[in-house]
């Protein structure tokens, strides 16, 4: 049996990789992908705990996370399309209209 800590460590590392990507990359798409990575690592954690605790709720929540991720991707990518159409870039460093 693989110890559960391995899964958790793996999930943690994936999460950190995702975080690094989300916070350092400038391309909106890549950041989005990094976020998906983070989501995935959380899913992994949930499943791992579900296994550890023998509780199915973790799996169920992963199911919901997927739905949310789908919705998020749909709307988020639509936003990218809209933004790209106006600014011809999705470089987040250049999208600083909200700057005071």
């Amino acid at each position: 049996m693989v110890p559960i800590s391995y899964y958790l460590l793996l999930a943690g590392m994936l999460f950190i990789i995702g975080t690094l990507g989300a916070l350092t990359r400038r391309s909106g798409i890549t950041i989005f992908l990094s976020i998906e990575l983070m989501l995935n690592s959380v899913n992994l954690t949930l499943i791992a705990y579900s296994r550890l605790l023998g509780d199915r709720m973790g799996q169920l929540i992963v199911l919901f996370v997927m739905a949310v991720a789908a919705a998020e991707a749909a709307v988020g990518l639509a936003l990218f399309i809209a933004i790209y159409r106006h600014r011809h870039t999705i470089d987040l460093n250049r999208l600083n209209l909200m700057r005071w």
Partner: protein
Amino acid sequence: MPHQYFPVLLAIGIALLVGVGMLVASRLAGRQVGGRVKLSTYESGMPLLDISHKRLSVAFFLVAIDFIVFDLEAAFLYPWALVMKDLGWPLFWAVVAFIALILVGYAYVWRKGGLNIVVRGRRAVRG
């Protein structure tokens, strides 16, 4: 029981082997002549006239969104198959409500022309 899934892994591995093997075999067996013209992109034998990656119609994106939504719907309905007989009619109505919600979005996209891929573009000079 994870080990039941091992054959799946096995099959995937074999598929990979087969795929790679085929290509490697061809690579080894075939003659490699090469040449600048031969290795250029095929566009009726012409050099590239245009950038290859034009932006595409947003309709494809809309189709993909609809796909996601329905795929999720299906994903959530699959467990239904397992318990439909146990939970019976109340669940049926719950599922109908769920499907109805999805169908509202579907109808919306339909009304807005999101499903009319390409045709919109062809009639660009409509008005």
